[in-house]
């Protein structure tokens, strides 16, 4: 607990110091990655980004949130980078985690292709639309929407429940036609679990909104995918988590192309972010075996809420 508390405190201290640095004469407007009138050497920013994202990677794993969700609000709120570059990098951060896990989840028969494909088709189509909307809207409007979304995610993290194997009395017609069902063996008990889903069309409609938000804000979408797949559609939690992660690799790829095509993906931001967050995640998994992450989750929610308010205040011009 002491160790995780130190990690959280260090993270907050870094964010505050970055905020002070960023506030010293930087402007966020215009399509430049970093204001070049600063007296601070350019290489400070990627280095600082590497350190902050490394801690973020640890915090994401210990706090139970996706890297993309932490990355976009915190980096856009506390670093002097234009929001478009941060969103582009955020999508790649989420994508990197999904691509690292995807093959393993498929081999373990946990990510369901039958469940993922119809959902991915809708979510990735609307992620493209979301990315286009996000790049077309004025930055202030996107900042305000981002702030509201982040605060909404905080509330969702506080109130959302999980159901290990939801009760689905009968598969609905759409899922039956699409043959969305499966079997997996629970490794801890050896139990064979037959699963099916219901409320498919309601779920698919929600994935329209999830796709738009994923593309618009570059947040990834695991925070929304899992509750919809698990609580609404009735997929077992293990299948929902695995399919959600696999789904990100499709959804975020579609949106990432739009950002890449618009020149919003620059190596100076993306490379340290990816290296930092993946390195941090790998360290976080090791720490998870010895740390009690309850406190870290509260710290992460607090950091997110703070970053959400910061995004709101930026958007509203306070």
């Amino acid at each position: 607990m002491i160790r995780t508390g130190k990690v959280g405190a260090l993270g907050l201290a870094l964010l505050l110091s970055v905020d002070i640095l960023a506030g010293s004469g930087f402007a966020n407007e215009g399509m430049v990655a970093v204001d070049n009138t600063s007296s601070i050497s350019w290489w400070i920013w990627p280095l600082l980004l590497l350190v902050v994202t490394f801690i973020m990677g640890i915090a994401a794993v210990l706090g139970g949130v996706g890297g993309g969700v932490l990355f976009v609000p915190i980096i856009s709120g506390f670093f002097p980078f234009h929001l478009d570059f941060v969103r582009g990098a955020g999508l790649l951060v989420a994508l990197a985690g999904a691509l690292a896990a995807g093959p393993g989840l498929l081999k373990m028969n946990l990510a369901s292709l039958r469940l993922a494909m119809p959902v991915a088709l809708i979510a990735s189509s609307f992620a493209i639309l979301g990315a286009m909307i996000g790049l077309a809207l004025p930055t202030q409007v996107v900042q305000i929407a981002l702030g509201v979304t982040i605060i909404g995610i905080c509330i969702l993290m506080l109130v959302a429940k999980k159901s290990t194997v939801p009760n689905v009395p009968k598969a609905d017609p759409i899922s039956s036609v699409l043959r969305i069902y499966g079997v997996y063996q629970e490794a801890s008990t050896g139990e064979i679990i037959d699963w099916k889903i219901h409320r498919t069309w309601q779920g698919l409609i929600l994935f329209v909104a999830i796709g738009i938000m994923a593309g618009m804000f570059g947040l990834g979408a695991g925070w929304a995918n899992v509750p919809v797949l698990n609580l609404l559609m009735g997929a077992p939690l293990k299948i929902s988590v695995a399919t959600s992660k696999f789904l990100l690799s499709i959804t975020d790829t579609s949106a990432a192309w739009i950002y890449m095509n618009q020149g919003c993906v620059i190596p100076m931001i993306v490379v340290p972010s990816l290296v930092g967050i993946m390195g941090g995640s790998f360290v976080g998994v090791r720490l998870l075996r010895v740390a009690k992450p309850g406190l870290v989750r509260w710290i992460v929610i607090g950091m997110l809420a703070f970053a959400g308010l910061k995004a709101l205040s930026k958007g509203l011009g306070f």
Partner: protein
Amino acid sequence: MPLTRKVSDLLVPIRDYAVTNQDSPLSEAILALRKVYCQIEVGKCTEAGHRNILVLDSTKRLVGILDFRTILKVLIPEIAGGLTQRLESIGVSVAFAQADSPELDESRLNFQSRVIKNADTRVKHVMLKIRGVIQAQDDLLAALKLMYANKITVLPVYDNGDLIGVLRESDLFLTVADIVNN
């Protein structure tokens, strides 16, 4: 000169070798290999047990091979696996942790449960490709060259299109060792 002998003089007949079907779970292959390996170790042959199992398709055609290392990579990927497998394993752990469900991560289960679950993998998904075969009438020198050129330790032996046995690196070693001994 021992190396002028034919492959057919030294091969292990197919009836003495462990075989499995490509659609079988790995657990079946492991038990078959264990049985043959242990039997040979305790009695029939004191030179070397078989460390491989041949994989056949439904028409009894040879399609692949499994060895100890390949089997262990599947059973305990986080230890015996290559960099990719270990990264995948960590990636899966990260996925469950980021979804606030680390208790669902199977790599946190005990060693025995993971080995049993991984042993359900189908043989065809993990078997090694056959990287060279030899004819029964070829000489041992040709077998030796083929084995080292292709970096393999066993060679399936064919006679008139039929799989009749296996030539092992250990058999070739003993043949070459005989030269020194004599």
